[in-house]
């Protein structure tokens, strides 16, 4: 009997040892563990800073139930980047870099242990982003002011590395309201945001897609020049005023029925691109066939389910159309083509970087609380969208869009804006029977001879890409180049 008692107590002692000695680490990550969750508020969470040193999220000492209060000094402007850190959940960088920000990441274990031994309070690691505060600020101001309150988003990339220089979505929200430690206030703020018109919580820069419109002609043009190695931007291509579509009575015309080139039915590719002739690219698309367009759309980063920056990016779609007629529409960025603003920036970035598309990323570096570097991001190549030669041709064509007198974005030539930009406008029809307001799209990079920045802009219902989207891109580029001292 004593043995039975001994066995029972030994079993209890062993089990308690297991529970409190070995199991805590695995139990901490189990569902509903409010203690482990609240424990994170007792440590100072790491800050999120831009590449030029502007703090956009920080934890400051607080005197309420938790020791630290999360603050977002720039509120709505950076909300699509930082996300929020509430009592119950996180989004954005707060979520995807949570383990380093709260200090629980395995890469910080040794440092935490040393802190424990030396009696220093445990602190989360800081995350340095690729964002340039000047570009971000210019994009935010331009979007909030110039778009007249219309929803839209801007993404700027460094073409050589894929570093995201600006990521703005409008309308946005103030994450400070969600950082409250009062759960009732939190629920009220959350409900208010969910009810608010325009869906401010949606990050339109990477999680919403629109038709690319004529900016998709970059893909169609790339496919044509790649599949016809003898052609150049000066090669004459079929450019009728009206393009008859097979198996339908429908006719494809240019904007306002305009004539393409000199009206001869043939025009140099460069001219058709600069004037954004739908008949030319519709015709090229039918010749190239949908599978080819699909292939090149994929090389530019579309149809990817796996892109992460580290937030997951909504897939930009090229859907193979069921008919030749619809292939013509898909070649000019209509039909079922949809892209994120990030994808728009990636079109220009791959052309600017000699056809080499770099994987976009947002986290530049993770720095421990003792300022030692934990992790630095190394740029990686996503794909070789086109050959350097074709990229040069596309660059010339995009330059013509802005610099040629008949280019669609001629208003932003070097004389007007003070730097040399290459780009492509898009004005995407949408709505039932295309009755909705046109979405304004613009993709560009600058300076032309030494690309530093590629920008993608989409303004929902903005009208013409050249008038609604391009000026915003210009503001961002101007601010960024100024910050580089050029």
């Amino acid at each position, binding site marked *: *009997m004593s043995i039975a008692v001994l066995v029972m*107590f030994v079993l209890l002692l062993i089990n*308690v040892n297991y529970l409190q000695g070995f199991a805590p680490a695995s*139990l901490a990550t189990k569902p509903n563990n409010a*203690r482990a969750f609240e424990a994170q508020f007792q440590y100072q969470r790491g800050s999120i800073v831009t590449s030029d040193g502007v703090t956009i999220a920080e934890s400051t000492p607080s005197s309420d139930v938790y020791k630290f209060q999360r603050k977002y000094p720039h509120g709505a402007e950076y909300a699509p980047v930082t996300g929020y850190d509430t009592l119950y959940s996180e989004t954005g960088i707060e979520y995807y870099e949570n383990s380093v920000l709260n200090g629980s990441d395995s890469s910080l274990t040794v440092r935490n242990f040393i802190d424990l031994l030396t009696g220093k309070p445990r602190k989360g690691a800081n995350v340095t982003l690729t964002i340039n505060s000047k570009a971000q600020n210019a994009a935010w101001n331009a979007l909030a002011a110039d778009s007249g309150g219309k929803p839209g988003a801007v993404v700027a990339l460094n073409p050589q590395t894929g570093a995201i220089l600006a990521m703005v979505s409008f309308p946005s929200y103030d994450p400070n309201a969600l950082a409250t430690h009062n759960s009732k206030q939190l629920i009220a703020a959350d409900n208010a945001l969910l009810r608010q018109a325009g869906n401010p919580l949606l990050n339109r820069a990477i999680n919403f897609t629109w038709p690319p419109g004529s900016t998709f002609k970059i893909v169609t043009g790339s496919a044509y020049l790649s599949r016809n190695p003898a052609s150049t931007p000066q090669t004459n291509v079929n450019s009728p005023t009206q393009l008859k579509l097979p198996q339908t009575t429908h006719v494809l015309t240019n904007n306002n029925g305009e004539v393409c080139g000199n009206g001869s039915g043939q025009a140099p590719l460069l001219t058709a691109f600069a004037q954004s002739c739908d008949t030319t690219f519709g015709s090229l698309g039918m010749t190239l066939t949908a599978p080819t367009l699909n292939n090149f759309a994929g090389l530019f980063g579309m149809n990817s389910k796996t892109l992460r920056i580290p937030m997951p990016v909504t897939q930009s779609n090229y859907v193979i159309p069921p008919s030749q007629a619809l292939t013509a529409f898909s070649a000019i960025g209509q039909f079922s083509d949809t892209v994120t603003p990030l994808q728009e920036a990636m079109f220009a970035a791959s052309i600017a970087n000699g056809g080499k598309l770099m994987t976009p990323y947002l986290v530049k570096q993770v720095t421990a609380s003792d300022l030692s570097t934990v992790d630095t991001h190394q740029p990686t190549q996503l794909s070789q969208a086109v050959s350097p030669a074709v990229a040069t041709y596309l660059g010339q064509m995009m330059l013509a869009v802005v610099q040629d007198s008949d280019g669609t974005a001629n208003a932003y030539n070097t004389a007007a804006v003070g730097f040399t930009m290459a780009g492509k406008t898009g004005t995407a029809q949408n709505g039932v029977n295309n009755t909705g307001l046109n979405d304004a799209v613009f993709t560009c990079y600058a300076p032309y001879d030494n690309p530093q920045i590629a920008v993608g802009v989409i303004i929902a219902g903005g009208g013409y890409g050249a008038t609604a989207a391009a000026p915003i891109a210009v503001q961002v580029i101007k601010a960024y180049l100024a910050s580089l001292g050029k």
Partner: protein
Amino acid sequence: MSSITAPAPALDPDGPLIPASRGRRRTELIMLVFGFALIAFAFANVGYTLKGKLPSAMVEYLGAFVVITVLAHVAVRRLAPWADPLLLPLAALLNGLGVVMTYRLAQQGNLLSAPLSSSATGIQVIYTVIGVGCFMAVLFLVREPRVLQRYTYTLGAVGLALLALPALLPASISEVAGAKIQIRLGSFTVQPEEFAKLALAVSFAGYLVAKRDVLALAGRRVLGIDLPRARDLGPILLIWAASLLLLVFESDIGTSALFMGLFVAMLYIATSRTSWLLLGFAMFVAGAFVASRLFGHVGERFDIWLHPFSGSNPSNNAYQLVQGLYGMASGGLLGKGLGGGQPYITPLVQSDLVFTAFGEELGLAGLMAILLIYGLIVQRGLRTAMSVKDPFSKLLAGGLSFMLALQVFVIVGGVTRLIPLTGITTPFLSQGGSSLVASWMLIALLIRISDTARRPPPRPIQEEGLTQVVTIQ
């Protein structure tokens, strides 16, 4: 015998015949004071952690506690001077820690789980006073353990009646958390099963002393195991049936296991036959298995035990168990310190899951200490059972000690997910009166038996003219 004629112990030629030459009451007092120091320290710890100062009510609570336990010590001095010196201080220490934890849980809560009512600590101190009062009453009324043997069948009937009472009463006054185990009178509740345990332990002991020979000797040998005769199976079947009825009608697996375990263990002590042990264990497991299939409440407990983290369990059925585990995990090796954790997150942490609250705040170190305190009480009890000569007292002490061990095993094993969690109290630590009072009465019985066991035999009266006993070397 006067002290003048009594020889000094060291010179006593019959020395080896006397098991303990003194009662060791001074040891008991020193240990008691040591316990008071620990409790006062724990109290102060809670106060400084939560409020940065000594708790204002500490003097009253601690004062009442010290007075009543010192009274108990005086009672032991008077009524059971030869008793084991550790039982009272160990029980008092656990009781004091329980009061401190009740105080701590009454001081702090959060939005979802309110703190215990501000009167909870005072009530727990009053229960302590009642419990220690009953302890003294038992010592006073039961001067000799053997007298209890007379009431074998009376106490058996009382025990079964107490057990059955809540099942017969309407759910409105007997149901708590899905189990019908209490009697509610206004704001005051009694859990009769706590007292039924004691009555039945005494009854079992009386019955088995009378019947143990026939239970031990008659029977056939099959596969090396002595099987009892079919007609001798009656009593064990009766208790088995009673425990299953308890399970079905009161949905109280923990208590049901406790009774079955108590009976089987006492049967084993009485007969020294392993077959009874195996038979009883097999019967309970089979019964519980069938019940788990037939009754949702029982099956649910098994599901919670086996899959606490899967599906919706962590937020629904297994919420309590899982939160208790999280609490213990957050305590780690050394704990958060009294007042430093968040034990209030766990539902019912003051009663069934109080062990996890200690785990969270005192850590692995504290839990090992608490388990060892229980282990020591059980060890003192079993030691008493081994040294007492009267077979009834032997059985009773063994049974009571084993029951205490089993209760600790069932609840601590339950909250640490060693076995399915069932709602029974943690002796001395849980908030609540019935369990505390019954636990003190159990300790009183053990002290009474240990007093008998350790009492030196009466010295032979040597008078001139009578034949003198001479030891020849």
